């Protein structure tokens, strides 16, 4: 089968989980014997869009260069359509994109079409997080468009427009005229012209209920060859153990405050731990808390190897939780909050612990158990590695989920 994959933001090395997801999906489909070709939007004025050397990728790819003024609902969909038409695929897979994606999807509607959604970009115009005022937001743009349009202006979109300096989220919001009432009908129509929708978890699927009848849950994965298992280093009972939190930790929805509070609780009773976070503001450091700066994709692997325990304390409904799977693949026990896709990744008491959202006392309790018991850390780490290999290895994951989905489209 010839599969064209289109993405409005793909970059490699990856800027985030969506890039890694698409990269490994393409590799997995190629390994299954499909002919694949990735079409990526690039724009010299935007580091977020298409920072990639297509010739360096291990699969065929075309970088479509757009001038800043061409990032609009007229030029971008037409260019994608032209490029895809020239390649003549059997199926089109639409990857990451924000407010311009519905236009691109509609332009490709003549093909059997699968669309992947990575966060809440369909349902939240504020910041694709569906998280507001410290709690999950009950609104959903597909059902409460007017409330969500107002909310967008109260959030990052309004802030960036007032300063007239944009990231791609706001740039696409303006270019796509997502503030206009007609945009809602376009989003719904773009959903309906997809033959299948792919999401990460049950919550995302539930948000689309009644709008699309063919929604598949396909979790993300991990490259178990790159994230290698190395047994936990032997440490004496009083030696400092490293508790690691990686990812975009400066984003409030990632819940760093919960880990910090848990650290304060632990610090009242013990000094045999150090919390390491990939934060770039080192002024928050103290005796047991260390901002270690941003680390790129390759360097992250080494951080897991040096850690004793990993924590993912997100407070929003994390669509997947790639860092939890990476930690498991590296053989480390993981403590995660009971949100979104995270609660499906960790098996409580087997590969780590699950604590309630913002429950720093619960997190501190679990961390204390892990710090006290090297055997428990080792057992959970090993169980996590096995689970990562069994459930989240990219090749297995793609082989399990995509063949039935794709065959259903062309028969």
């Amino acid at each position, binding site marked *: 089968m010839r599969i064209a994959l289109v993405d409005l933001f793909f970059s490699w090395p990856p800027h985030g989980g969506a890039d890694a997801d698409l990269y490994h999906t393409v590799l997995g489909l190629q390994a299954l014997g499909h002919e694949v070709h990735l079409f990526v939007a690039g724009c010299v004025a935007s580091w977020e869009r298409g920072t990639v050397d297509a010739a360096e990728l291990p699969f065929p790819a075309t970088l479509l260069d757009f001038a800043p003024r061409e990032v609009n609902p007229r030029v971008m969909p037409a260019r994608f359509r032209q490029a895809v038409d020239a390649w003549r695929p059997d199926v089109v897979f639409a990857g990451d994109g924000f407010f311009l994606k519905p236009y691109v999807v509609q332009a490709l509607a003549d093909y059997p079409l699968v669309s992947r959604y990575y966060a809440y970009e369909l349902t939240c115009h504020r910041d694709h997080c569906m998280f507001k005022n410290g709690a*999950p937001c009950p609104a*959903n743009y597909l059902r409460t468009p007017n409330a969500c349009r107002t909310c967008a202006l109260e959030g990052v979109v309004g802030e960036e*427009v*007032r300063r007239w300096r944009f990231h791609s989220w706001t740039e696409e919001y303006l270019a796509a005229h997502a503030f*206009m009432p007609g945009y809602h009908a376009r989003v719904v129509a773009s959903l309906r012209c997809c033959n299948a929708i792919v999401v990460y978890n049950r919550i995302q699927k539930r948000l689309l209920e009644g709008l699309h009848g063919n929604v598949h849950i396909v979790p993300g994965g991990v490259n178990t060859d790159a994230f290698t298992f190395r047994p936990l280093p032997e440490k004496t009972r009083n030696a400092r153990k490293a508790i690691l939190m990686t990812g975009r930790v400066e984003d409030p929805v990632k819940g760093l405050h919960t880990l910090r509070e848990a650290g304060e609780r632990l610090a009242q009773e013990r000094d045999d731990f150090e919390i390491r976070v990939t934060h*770039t503001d080192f*002024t928050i450091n103290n005796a047991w808390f260390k901002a270690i700066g941003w680390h790129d994709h390759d360097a992250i692997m080494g951080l897991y190897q040096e850690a004793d325990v990993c924590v993912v304390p997100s407070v929003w409904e994390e669509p997947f939780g790639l860092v939890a799977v990476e930690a498991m693949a590296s053989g480390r026990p993981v403590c995660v909050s009971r949100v979104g896709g995270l609660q499906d990744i960790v098996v409580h008491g087997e590969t780590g612990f699950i604590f309630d959202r913002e429950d720093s006392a619960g997190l501190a309790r679990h961390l204390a158990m892990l710090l006290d018991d090297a055997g428990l850390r080792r057992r959970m780490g090993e169980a996590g590695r096995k689970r990562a290999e069994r459930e989240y290895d990219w090749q297995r994951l793609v082989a399990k989920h995509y063949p039935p989905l794709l065959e259903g489209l062309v028969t």
Partner: protein
Amino acid sequence: MTGLTDSATPRICAYFSVGRNYLKVLRAIRAEEPNARLCAMVPAGYPVSEAEASVADEIIETQLARYSAWNVPACLRLVRQLRAGRYDVFVVMFDSTELQVLSSLAGARRRSYCTMDGRLVPLTAPIPRVLAGAVARTVRGRLAYALLWLAVRVLRVRGQKETPKLDA
């Protein structure tokens, strides 16, 4: 770009700001000017990584860990420290108004900022133009916001029952 300066061994200062791309900035400068004396100017107490230390020739700390434009005496001391360095090129991590003004005051003959994907872009505007640009952007942004606000408040999506419920 073939180089940041004409000098054979220029002194280049890479000024740190809170952000993810400092190492990328250092590497981009080193790639452009392999023979330069590269000074990494970091805040007091900054934990320099091995990778950063290996790219830079010299690590210099500022007096404070954090500067605010409202703390004028501290900013003046920072400017004095920068000018004393006699740098040929001054590179900042972003093209914000504050960093553009600071780079203008640093006394370097050339100044640049590094984009998130590692491209060095020259900064050429003098301070009055930087400030005028900031004012113009703010005015334009406020006007655009007002129009958006009107569009959102006046033009409504019809046929929708707006009853938010927690789908999650």
